[in-house]
């Protein structure tokens, strides 16, 4: 890599690829060829930079210039101006919300508060080239472990670090490894849970897309520590990019002797295979995941026995999440003491979040545990979109809850989030503004759990369906006050009697919104009113005659032709045809369309 003077890093995460990162890479290469620079400047497609909102992103090294919203047509200018003449292309630089162009990524608020451990290589290396991983201390930890440490020492190191499972539960990883280690039965398996079922999250797939070797290395370390020689990654078939990069990484690691027979020339054998999930949220639950890997329907079974006792094919199995594994090589390299200093006492290290929703900087972020929600949403996230007011933040996906203004200063860690009625979950963080109706949000999650319930146990299969129906009635203004009490009671029964975590936590979005936004529920029931103005059955779009100038803008936008009126005449909306899409409100420049 030394022969190149400069590097152009193009974000190759799913989001940026969706907006033409491939053709940007191609045309950058062409421009370089044109100017005969291909031997001096290297173009690398990396994993996700995290700053998805302003993608596609191109970063120039060594000066860290950070170009945002780059289009294939801009590449010529980047090459001619920046690389040849040494002048930054101003119009492509990131513009800070408070004004002014930001010259390099080190000065962006988005990155200042972040500490990147699990994401250390995402956006820095070419995930399809093992040499680049190795150049950043890759496979060094595996080497250390194999040459200098006993399995027990590895386990002690992980225990000492305080690393807790990042898949949602927060169970101490070292302890789990120890259970598998102590079980004498053979063969044993190391499983990586890359199912990522949370419907608003993309951290695990981004790690796999951006730094697949980190997970492979950690799985080998875990294999050595627990006495397993087979690794399995359970990944969704819907993640083609992550699968492709994993396959390449596994091939390369085998070639280099980091996987396979006699890893690093020792007598330790370890190989990794992929197993495909086929799109069922419940398969993220570890017992269901194991059944799915065995080719069965992915239905959970009662624990105990835990996977460490009887897992894949009835053998001892260690299941950890992608992000949990991604932390391990760093813990070995830098020591448990170093890791423990980051984060809070009971939740050490960092957490990756997929920050999305009504926030200015949607993206993938990694912050020390103990960072407050306010710092994440307002400093890193750049506040609420379109100058609206913050209303709630949802963490923990379908198992979590909605937190409000009053929780903004809560330091984020496993225990604090549970204490305020939500949970860490796998790291989805969705920000909502004043236009979001909390009853509808609860209904959205219930719809998801009803769809995803495996149907094995009645409280979850039937109960959640009833919850969803009740919520539906509330949003239609057809519920009574006593329904709210019924709703609450049913939530508790479902939580107490369901077999697996899916059913047990399914009522959480309802309970937490009832707790924090009770008035909103009451307004739907008593006044048939949706305070956020989002429940369609409770609203009417009307044209205010005094404001309407008859410009026809709304009528042209209306997708169903519900608006009639001659040019320069007051227009009217036919309520029977209107589908309440809201397009007319946006179309009218005279504020003549109101929602009632």
């Amino acid at each position: 890599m030394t022969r190149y003077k400069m590097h152009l890093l193009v974000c190759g995460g799913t989001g940026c690829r969706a907006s033409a990162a491939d053709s940007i890479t191609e045309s950058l290469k062409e421009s370089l060829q044109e100017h005969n620079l291909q031997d001096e400047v290297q173009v690398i497609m990396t994993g996700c930079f995290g700053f998805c909102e302003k993608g596609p992103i191109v970063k120039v090294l060594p000066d860290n210039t950070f170009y945002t919203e780059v289009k294939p047509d801009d590449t010529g200018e980047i090459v001619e101006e920046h690389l040849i003449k040494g002048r930054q292309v101003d119009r492509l630089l990131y513009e800070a919300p408070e004004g002014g162009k930001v010259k390099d990524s080190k000065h962006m608020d988005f990155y200042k508060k972040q500490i990147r451990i699990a994401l250390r290589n995402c956006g820095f290396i070419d995930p399809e080239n093992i040499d680049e991983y190795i150049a950043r201390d890759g496979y060094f930890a595996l080497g250390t472990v194999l040459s200098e440490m006993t399995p027990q020492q590895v386990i002690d190191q992980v225990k000492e670090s305080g690393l807790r499972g990042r898949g949602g539960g927060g169970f101490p990883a070292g302890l789990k490894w120890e259970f598998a280690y102590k079980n004498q039965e053979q063969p044993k398996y190391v499983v990586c849970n890359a199912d990522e079922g949370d419907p608003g999250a993309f951290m695990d797939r981004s790690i796999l897309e951006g730094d697949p070797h980190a997970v492979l290395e950690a799985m080998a370390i875990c294999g050595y520590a627990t006495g397993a020689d087979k690794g399995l990654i359970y990944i969704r078939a819907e993640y083609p990019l992550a699968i492709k990069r994993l396959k390449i990484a596994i091939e390369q690691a085998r070639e280099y002797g980091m996987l396979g027979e006699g890893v690093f020339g020792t007598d330790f054998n370890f190989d990794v295979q992929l197993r495909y999930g086929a799109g069922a949220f419940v398969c993220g639950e570890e017992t269901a995941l194991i059944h799915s890997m065995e080719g069965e329907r992915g239905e959970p079974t009662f624990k105990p026995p835990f996977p460490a006792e009887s897992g894949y094919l009835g053998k001892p199995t260690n299941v950890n999440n992608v992000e949990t594994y991604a932390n391990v090589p760093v813990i070995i390299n830098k020591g448990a003491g170093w890791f423990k200093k980051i984060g809070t006492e009971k939740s050490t290290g960092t957490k990756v979040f997929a920050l999305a929703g009504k926030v200015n900087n949607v993206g993938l972020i990694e912050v020390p545990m103990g960072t407050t929600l306010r710092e994440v949403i307002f400093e890193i996230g750049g506040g609420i979109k379109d100058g609206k007011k913050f209303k709630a933040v949802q963490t923990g996906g379908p198992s979590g809850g909605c937190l409000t203004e009053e929780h903004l200063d809560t330091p984020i860690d496993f225990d604090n989030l549970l204490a305020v009625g939500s949970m860490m979950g796998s790291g989805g963080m969705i920000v909502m503004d004043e236009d979001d109706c909390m009853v509808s949000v609860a209904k959205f999650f219930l719809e998801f759990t009803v769809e995803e319930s495996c149907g094995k146990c009645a409280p979850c299969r039937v109960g959640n369906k009833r919850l969803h129906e009740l919520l539906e009635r509330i949003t239609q203004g057809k519920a009574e006050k006593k329904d709210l009490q019924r709703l609450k009671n049913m939530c508790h029964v479902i939580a107490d009697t369901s077999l697996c975590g899916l059913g047990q936590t399914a009522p959480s979005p309802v309970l937490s919104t009832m707790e924090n936004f009770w008035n909103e529920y009451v307004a739907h029931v008593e006044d048939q009113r949706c305070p956020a103005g989002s429940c369609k059955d409770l609203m009417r779009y009307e044209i205010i005659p005094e404001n309407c100038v008859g410009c026809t803008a709304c009528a042209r936008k209306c997708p169903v032709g519900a608006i009639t009126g001659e040019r320069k005449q007051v227009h009217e909306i036919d309520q029977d045809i209107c589908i309440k899409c809201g397009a007319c409100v946006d179309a009218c420049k005279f504020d003549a369309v109101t929602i009632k």
Partner: protein
Amino acid sequence: MSRIKVKIKEQDLTKIREICQAHNNEPGELINVLQQTQEHFGYLPAEIQEAVAQELGLPVAKVYGVVTFYSFFTMIPQGRYPISICTGTACYVRGADNVLQEFKRQLGIAVGETSEDGKFSLNCLRCVGACGLAPVVLVGDKTYGRVAPDGVKDILAEYQDKE
């Protein structure tokens, strides 16, 4: 082989055998086998499920049970331009539902259905990992970001003249 009652072309059967053999006819590989079979045929109708069951030595009910459990498997043919609307949380709060309703209205089909001319099919999926572009719509491999209900017409128009 005489157990297969429904007609299935010899070449299709050969393909299914090939896929099963690549997985050593291992019943535990059922999901991987089904996935490759679907990749080849586009969908998994009853006769194909029967053939797979036969090859792997499994009851047809078991294969059917797995096919219907996982949302990735489909028993009806997809459109030539399969449309998927992301209804993940991030897309939901940025208005994915309105976009979905508009697609349903324009195409006159429900989620999970295919248009009569076999051109479009409509499905939902949860988070495609491009939340920064929410709401997101996929048509085949092509991604459309920040889609508004009034942009639906333009998306469909792109495919109107294509076969």
